[in-house]
């Protein structure tokens, strides 16, 4: 029920803020890029953390609950936070209505983000679909830590692959795979990964967005003793560890299966911990 690791602090590390929309533009037919103003503590958000957004009503409905969205980028100097979101239902379609100057109520930063071990020299980032939004800030984080990144970005069609330029700009090597030419099939991705492992480019795996890819990385990680991290998703209500809506199944230390809260113990977990994405 309570996480005894959590220290009682003087200040508050999470806040409900009324951000101002700076831009909200389509990046392809399914995804949009949202940039908003932000103050501390929002600007302290780390890669892998998320915000819980109060989405406006739209003709598609009145979203009652907030919607979790990963931090796509943070610029603490200019006071900005960015999101990359896929149009799904009432919440994201409500977000799509926001225009520059509109207000967005956001709660955050929330959850536990990615962590880079100083010993790692080369990491592999393997993402698909919405997962690319969550993984994107790893590019900057790795660059700052002088860690080399190979990013394998997967999507249904070539025009839906995102963040290629973002990763390249941070010095990452980018490999794009997609369903249209079958390059995204597990067999092919496994071949690419085994090649990178053989070339010593895989000190750690990072993934988000696909169950098949998680299972693949778990298998390879096990086989080669390569650690890693995975960001999970689950429906949320509170996003503060209070409601236990957002649990998923994890291997328990004692060998059984236990529930953990994606919003609180995660969304980033050790690669081998979850049973599935």
């Amino acid at each position, binding site marked *: 029920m309570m996480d005894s690791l959590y220290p009682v602090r003087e200040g508050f590390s999470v806040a409900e803020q009324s951000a101002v929309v700076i831009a909200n533009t389509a990046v392809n037919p399914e995804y949009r890029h949202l940039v908003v103003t932000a103050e501390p503590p929002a600007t302290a958000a780390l890669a892998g953390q998320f915000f819980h957004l109060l989405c406006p009503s739209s003709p598609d409905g009145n979203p009652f609950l907030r919607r979790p969205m990963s931090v796509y980028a943070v610029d603490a100097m200019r006071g900005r936070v960015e999101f990359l979101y896929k149009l799904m239902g009432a919440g994201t379609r409500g977000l799509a209505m926001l225009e520059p100057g509109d207000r967005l109520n956001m709660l955050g930063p929330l959850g536990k983000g990615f962590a880079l071990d100083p010993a790692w020299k080369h990491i592999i980032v393997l993402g698909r679909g919405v997962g690319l939004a969550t993984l994107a800030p790893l590019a900057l984080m790795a660059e700052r830590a002088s860690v080399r990144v190979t990013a394998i970005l997967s999507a249904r069609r070539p025009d839906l692959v995102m963040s290629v330029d973002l990763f390249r700009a941070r010095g990452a090597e980018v490999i794009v795979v997609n369903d249209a030419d079958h390059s995204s099939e597990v067999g092919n991705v496994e071949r690419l990964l085994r090649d990178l492992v053989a070339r010593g480019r895989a000190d750690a795996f990072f993934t988000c967005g696909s169950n098949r890819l998680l299972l693949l990385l778990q298998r390879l990680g096990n086989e080669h003793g390569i650690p890693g991290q995975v960001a999970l998703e689950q429906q949320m209500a509170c996003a503060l560890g209070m*409601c236990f809506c957002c649990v998923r199944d994890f291997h328990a230390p004692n060998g059984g299966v236990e529930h953990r809260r994606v919003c609180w113990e995660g969304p980033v977990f050790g690669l081998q911990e979850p049973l599935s994405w």
Partner: protein
Amino acid sequence: MVDLAVDIGGLRLANPVMPASGTFSDGLARVIDFNRLGAFVIKTVTRELRAGNPTPRVAETAGGMLNSIGIPSKGIDYFFDETLPFYKRFKPPLVVSISAPTADGFASLATELGVSGVAAIEANISCPNLEEDGRAFAMTPHATASVVARLRAATKLPLWVKLTPNTGDIADVARAAEANGADAVVVANTILAMSIDVATFRPRLGSVTGGLSGPAVKPVILRQVYQCARAVKIDIVGCGGIATGADAVEYMLAGASAVQIGTATFIHPTALIRVIDEIEEFCNHRGFSRISALTGALMRAGVDETDLEWRQEAGE
């Protein structure tokens, strides 16, 4: 200066606003100052370890949400080792919500909780009674009477009994709780409900049905508070869809002495604090020096008088 203090079944609270069980945990300390709360009410604790229900556990509806969390529990040892020490660091009293499948189970938990740092017991009797047909204790006056009597014998702590809104006899159930020694009733838990995804033909909750909460239920639970207030003399804690100070005042006018806030905290994590500020402001504005004066202050005028009043207001 408004005196916000209230007395709930023998327990003094600095103000009448507290979280609803299952919608609050230490995580909220990242956002609000816990020392401002009237009390802490924690997620229902059971003796044994429990996993809770299958996912998905949440769905949204018009003006509310469904949950089917169930009662995942780390067990009573975890409560003593971790939860209790954590809350001892703060000023507000700790109300411990408990549940068990039998009256005996309730009683033994209550006895065990008679330790320093536990200020009151909230018996969540909306759970299935395994000794009868598996219906919740709180569905009938009879089952309520028996479990409350056992609880009363088992603890000297203030005993709050949380009712279910799913019964057709909530006033009788409240009477049964009062007659058997409850110090207060909490009205109420969630309303049993469901939702179906017409795209997949599947229930939106993993356990098919779940509990409805949030603004959508407010008029129903408010009515139940009103019915209970006319049936019993013990204190009533109102709980259902409260999101603003005005909502809290509405519950107090209907007969509640304090309120619990659940779902609203998911939408605005500062809701508890805002409601405290807003009821204080309301009292100031309306010239009440003590918040407790609001309890039961509903004006039930003669029919014609009400009618006329409305006309006058509408008139210009």
